[in-house]
């Protein structure tokens, strides 16, 4: 498909900061060629950092340690609550402490392959290189990683790799890493080097003379709108999985910071790349507000099945005879069985449920059965391995997984797309840097387990602090004041929008629109997409958008704590993003990474990638609420890891 009714095609986008030459020395050479800011001048430069998760928290702390003045913002009541806190599994690093053949090159190789050849080699190599420094840094901060009896660090293995390179702190690795970054940040706040603004939400980007120079924020307690200025702006505002309404993201996670920047000119890359995790606790009814992930490790011992006959779905699991059960993963993928990659397990679950063979409320679930494992290993051994997960499952569902099989269903978990950035992590707006899940840079079309924490901390501790100096070396930039025309305009955009939300006074709640958007996205822009479905979805989203702006009801005032007003702004942006995601998915007529395109499959129904046509990152330019987005392609070149086909049969 070429440019169409839905989009136009523009000039390719080129990463001008990308070094060439041997991949092993690219980062070293970029650091050497980057301009520096001498320590005495750093205190004259201010950097705004939006978000305090692994990327934003570590960046704010590190920039302040280096001597820059930092202003940090988060919507939560404390920087410690950012959603990185919920990451369970672990963090990858190429330490090769197991002596099992790991290396920087192997982590690089696995990550490029895991991303299904849709990520930049230069970025991924750098990520693998700094991974080792992350572990050193976190240990020095006192992060209590799991250890062996000799006192050295323990490792576990994770999906998609053949080495043990994942460092972990029980099932709470994200929490412990975030607390490390948070404590470093609080130290800088205490020293007066970081001005921390909790319960503040960025609602607009301020661009002066073509450079990102500040943000418009709303104090979520008083409703006061202020304009904040700096020499550079860093967005570390996380992913956009909540466009699906139900996801494993925290309720407050939103796309507003990056979407506002996109509307002001920053390209948004690969928005349709989302990761869907196969082992989540299914919905229990229409009240469902979020989904909870359970560690993928459960698939090591649990067997996935549904009844062969849809008529059996209403029966209790125990009454379904062995021969009437379909262990469909073991049947379709005999060599990998229940351990097929995330995307394959997720899609297979949806397929059997679409056939009417799903179990539990609404038929949206499959069994994950530990009966065989309990028989083989004994209940004690199963308890030792998975006790905390079983407990969590029972708390949420009220069912005992030792007695009845667990029910699981896929849920949106992570978004690989985000604002386009160059090798320096700078967006297409000079002075606007984007780090962590908010950018698109390192995971391609699918992210490996235990790589999100690695990327967030790599960007925040080691990459951004080294690249931003190249930009800041030209500063301090001319002072900006509240009376400058672009500032007045940005502020007015925010105030007008809030006034508009409050004036509609319709008959539908914000949540009802969010739920409806989520259902459209899940149905048509989830695990499996088709031209017909996506075209339909775009129409539905456009209609929903019109309805939102005429029928939404936002209670209360602007000048107070108003949680529905906060949500209204986020949902309005999610609706626009949802449309772009569908357009991006429509244009990418290939199955790739976590995405299955119905029209692009092998004769036996497996994903078929089209490297000849789609070996590029799709970076979209905003052209007005009713205009067509313009596609700018960034060609991907693979000099080291040559594209190959995955097979799990």
């Amino acid at each position, binding site marked *: 498909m070429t440019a169409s009714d839905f989009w136009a095609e523009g000039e390719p986008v080129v990463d001008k900061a990308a070094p060439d030459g041997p991949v092993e020395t690219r980062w070293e050479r970029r650091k050497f060629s980057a301009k520096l800011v001498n320590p005495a001048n750093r205190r004259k430069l201010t950097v705004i950092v939006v978000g305090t998760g692994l990327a934003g928290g570590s960046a704010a702390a590190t920039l302040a340690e280096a001597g820059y003045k930092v202003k940090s913002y988060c919507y939560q009541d404390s920087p410690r609550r950012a959603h990185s806190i*919920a990451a369970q599994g672990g963090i990858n690093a190429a330490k090769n402490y197991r002596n099992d053949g790991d290396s920087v090159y192997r982590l690089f190789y696995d990550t490029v392959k895991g991303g299904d050849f849709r990520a930049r080699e230069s970025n991924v190599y750098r990520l693998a290189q700094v991974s080792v420094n992350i572990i050193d840094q976190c240990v020095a901060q006192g992060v209590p990683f799991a250890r062996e009896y000799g006192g050295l660090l323990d490792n576990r293995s994770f999906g998609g790799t053949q080495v043990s390179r994942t460092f972990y702190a029980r099932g709470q690795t994200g929490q412990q890493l975030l607390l490390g970054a948070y404590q470093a940040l609080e130290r800088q706040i205490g020293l007066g080097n970081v001005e921390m603004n909790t319960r503040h939400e960025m609602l607009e980007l301020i661009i002066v003379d073509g450079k990102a120079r500040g943000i418009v924020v709303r104090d979520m307690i008083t409703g006061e709108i202020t304009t904040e200025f700096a020499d550079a702006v860093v967005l570390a505002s996380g992913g956009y999985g909540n466009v699906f309404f139900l996801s494993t993201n925290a309720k407050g996670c939103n796309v507003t910071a990056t979407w506002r920047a996109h509307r002001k000119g920053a390209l948004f890359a690969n928005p349709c790349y989302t990761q869907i995790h196969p082992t989540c606790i299914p919905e229990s009814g229409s009240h469902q507000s979020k989904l909870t992930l359970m560690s993928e490790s459960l698939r090591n011992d649990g067997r996935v099945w549904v009844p062969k006959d849809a008529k059996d779905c209403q029966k209790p699991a125990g009454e379904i005879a062995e021969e009437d059960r379909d262990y469909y993963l073991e049947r379709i993928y005999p060599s990998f069985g229940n351990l097929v990659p995330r995307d394959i397990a997720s899609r297979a679950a949806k397929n059997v449920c679409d056939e009417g063979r799903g179990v539990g409320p609404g038929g949206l679930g499959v069994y994950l059965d530990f009966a065989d494992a309990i028989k083989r290993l004994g209940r004690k051994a199963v308890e030792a391995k998975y006790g905390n997960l079983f407990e969590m499952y029972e708390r949420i569902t009220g069912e005992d997984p030792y007695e009845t099989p667990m029910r699981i269903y896929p849920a949106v978990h992570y978004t690989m797309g985000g604002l386009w950035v160059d090798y320096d992590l700078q967006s297409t707006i000079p002075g606007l840097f984007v780090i962590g899940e908010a950018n698109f840079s390192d995971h391609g079309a699918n992210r490996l387990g235990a790589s999100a924490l690695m990327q967030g901390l790599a960007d925040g501790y080691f990459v951004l602090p080294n690249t931003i100096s190249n930009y800041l070396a030209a500063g301090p930039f001319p002072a900006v004041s509240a009376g400058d025309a672009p500032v007045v305009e940005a502020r007015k955009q925010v105030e007008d929008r809030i006034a508009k939300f409050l004036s509609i006074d319709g008959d539908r709640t914000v949540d009802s629109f969010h739920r409806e958007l989520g259902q459209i996205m899940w149905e048509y822009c989830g695990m499996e997409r088709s031209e017909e479905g996506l075209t339909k979805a775009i129409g539905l989203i456009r209609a929903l958008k019109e309805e939102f702006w005429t029928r939404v009801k936002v209670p209360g005032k602007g000048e107070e704590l108003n949680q*529905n007003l906060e949500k209204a702004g986020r949902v309005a942006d999610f609706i626009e993003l949802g449309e772009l995601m569908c357009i991006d998915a429509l244009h990418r007529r290939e199955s790739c990474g976590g995405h299955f395109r119905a029209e692009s499959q092998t004769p036996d129904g497996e994903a078929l990638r089209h490297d000849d046509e789609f070996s590029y990152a799709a970076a979209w330019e905003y052209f007005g609420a009713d205009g067509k987005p313009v596609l700018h392609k960034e060609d991907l070149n693979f000099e080291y890891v040559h594209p190959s086909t995955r097979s799990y049969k």
Partner: protein
Amino acid sequence: MDIKVRVWRQAGPSAAGKMVTYDVKGISPDASFLEMIDVLNETLILNGDDPIAFDHDCREGICGMCSMVINGVAHGPEKATTTCQLHMRKFKDGDVIDVEPWRAAAFPVIKDLVVDRTPLDKIIQAGGYITAPTGTAPDAHATPVPKKDADAAFEAATCIGCGACVAACPNGSSMLFTAAKIAHLGLMPQGQPERDSRVIDMLQAQDDAGFGGCTNAGECTTVCPKGIPMSLIGRLNSDYRKAISKR
């Protein structure tokens, strides 16, 4: 299930508050407590009433944002469980459930069930860290940490900073919160150089932020969603005595 909730409504920090009763009908026993409030809020909005403001975020028991006193107990009746992980099946049809904000001198109410917990961050700022600027770290294996110390440090570090301990304490003390951080960092070899100054500075910050003193009432640990034990307060006191005696 049909239930009634009596909820603390307070328009702003200086406004007077009161308990207001609402009927919630047809709620699923599988709904979480916060989902029950969501459902109630949807009705309130459509009826033209002000929905109930409450803090929440991850809804999986780890971010520490949710904070409701339910029937007089911080985080409600289920042991070692945050409000967001409490489900309606723990209640009975026809129950009348009281819902209040954290109440402590150091946590002023902002609106309804939302309180200001920034004083907890102030305690961390005073010393709840190990000074290790980015880039200065030696190899991670340079200093082995005995497994039992690492495990004990981890247990203390699982504190989610929700403030339930403060809400439950008759003195409004944050001692359990502070003690958990002192234990986490004090159990690691990396935390030794700042061990003495840390405990003195954090306790000072705790007093300055308006938290009460600890009288070993033990209410904190009974409501702690992560089961942080009282013994850590003993450890803090011991660290404090040693630190002060060196001054």
